[in-house]
């Protein structure tokens, strides 16, 4: 518990963080920037888990443990994404989103 801070304020902050992440995900033109935006989104949700655990169910640890799992998954995801980006750069010498749209119509 943070003295004087209600759950609403924390959730507001995480919501803002979440939508900043989404904004970045949609508008950024670079694959690494997109990856950064994804990290923001993930972190916003991790904070939510933790905060809800703390404020609503303080005698349990589910939220915390899930946060740990999310962090682990995020690490795995980042490692894979980075390897894909490096591979892609080797193949087409670019990490721009516009160069990776061969899956279009």
């Amino acid at each position, binding site marked *: 518990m943070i003295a004087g801070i209600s759950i609403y304020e924390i959730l507001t902050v995480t919501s803002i963080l979440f939508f900043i992440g*989404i904004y970045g*995900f*949609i*508008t*950024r033109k670079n694959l690494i920037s*997109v990856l950064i935006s994804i990290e923001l989104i993930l972190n916003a949700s991790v904070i939510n888990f933790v905060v809800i655990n703390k404020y609503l169910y303080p005698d349990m640890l589910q939220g915390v443990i899930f946060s740990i799992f999310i962090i682990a998954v995020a690490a795995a995801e980042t490692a894979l994404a980075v390897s894909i980006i490096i591979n892609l750069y080797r193949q087409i010498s670019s990490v721009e*989103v*516009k160069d*990776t*749209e*061969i*899956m*279009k*119509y």
Partner: protein
Amino acid sequence: MNISYIILIPLVPLAVFLLLGINSQKIKPAISGYIGVLGLSISAALSLYTAYQYFLVQGKVDGVYQTFVSKTVWMKFTETLHIDMGILIDPISVMMLVVVSIVSLMVHIYSRGYMKGDEGYTRFFAFLSLFSFSMYGLVLATNLFQIYIFWELVGVSSFLLIGYYYTKPSAVAAAKKAFIVTRFADLGFLIGILIMGYFAGTYDFQTLNNPEGSVILNWASTSFMGLSVITWALLLIFMGGAGKSAMFPLHIWLPDAMEGPTPVSALIHAATMVVAGVYLVARLFPMFYFVENGFALNIVAYVGAFSSLFAAIIAITQTDIKRVLAFSTMSQIGYMMLALGVSGYDGHEGVGYMASMFHLFTHAMFKALLFLCAGSVIHAVHSNYLKDMGGLRKYMPITNITFLIAALAIAGVPPFAGFWSKDEILVAAFEHNMLIYYVGVFVAGLTAFYMFRIYFGIFWGKEKEYEHAPHESPKSMTFPLLFLAVLSMVAGFIPFSEFVSPDKVGFEAHLNYPLAAIATSVGLLGIILAWIFYKKENSLSDRFAMAFGPFYKWTSDKFYFDEIYLFITKKILFNNVSAPLAKFDKKYVDGTMEGVGNKTVWLSGKIKGLQSGKVQDYAFSFVMGAVIIALVFIYLWTN
């Protein structure tokens, strides 16, 4: 009586068909001929065994031939209305089994010689087996729908075999003509079946034909345009039969069907398939007889009599020997129809029915023989036309003798087979309808005349110059000739009336001497006339043709029926009905469909940019959609 083995009779030819049809490229022609003959031999042996068992071992129970049925329900519509598949054994189906198997076996044996060296030899035997299978199925059918299925199957086999020489345009045209004309007739058949299903509530022959059954007793319950609906159904079913049996006015396909190989003409267009119409009427005979007091049966009689006369007249003037035989077939089938038409039901009254079946039996033998002889002649001189033949008796003694026997049989000279059956027909006609009797006698004379016209034309007269001297056909071809000739001589002595009669009781048939004498003398008169005209080449026939003038011309052009039909279809139907419909179809139906297609392509082109391949665009759409859905839910929940 155990009838389960009878299922093998159609199934063996089917197996042969599948074997030869699927492996037609792999099997050597010599072997395929043996396979075909072997398959048919098994069927023929089983058929003869069945006939022996049925007529002689089993015999009558309480004075009546029993009907054996083994069937399974295939499609069930209501409690009584269902389509079954099965086999029905009664006197006429057993008789037809014998006819089909004997003629089919003989034709198979004959074809081994006749088709030798022909391309597609294996295919030919495959189609023959398919035909045999279909014909057996038709004969053994237990209900209207099953008979219809096999009816179409024989139509298809006939189409395939007429168009066997598919590189020849005339054969292709003939095959199409036969198929289209018979299909048109079968449309009537199908409508008749459906009417029967709706108003009678059953397709089953036994239920329909039961003289005390509800269908026959209640025929008057529903009427349409002054006639009972059941009568209408019967007339439509008869239309199908008339198409298959080449009755006037649906006869135009039969002469053209002679484009097929001659064994096919012998099997399909003389002995078996074309009598399917007669068999169909005989199969439904109690209905034809009892419903509306035999109104439909009268129609059958008059159609048969007219076709018989009409075809006999045309046959006189034709110069293609196979066409003469085709018109002769049509004429003789007309005979069978008229015999059915004048038949009664009980006891001796049923002489017409019995005579019709008898004539079907004997006619199958001697007409198949005539065709096979004609095939043998054609094989020797490589021409169908009478003008290319003459004096062949020296070169082809066996063909000569067998042809003579067959011609005597069809002319009704005692003691050959045709005499007995024709006599019974004339007796039946004499007892019931004098007009039809006179027609019958006149046709008998015409038959003798045209048959001996071609006999003398082929085997007597002046020898023509042949490219290479004609010779007798090989043994595989003469054996069936001799076998059928023997049958044509003795078949008349079978006590047919004991076996086949409408009420299945059987009766004693006696020769009616005055009538027999009249018929025979008319036949002899025809033969003598032919002798005078054609024995030696002379100008007498030409002078007679001149004397008849335009009538002769009409006749030799088959009364212009082909031209009339062509005019009706091409000029009137195609121009005034089909062309506007085609235009409508193209412009509006196709136009709508194509418009839908084009618009879809156009729209897709416009919106394909949505699938940009960029995950971010998809994410944007996803987020927007999620937000909108959330807004909608919030709106709904708060209100």
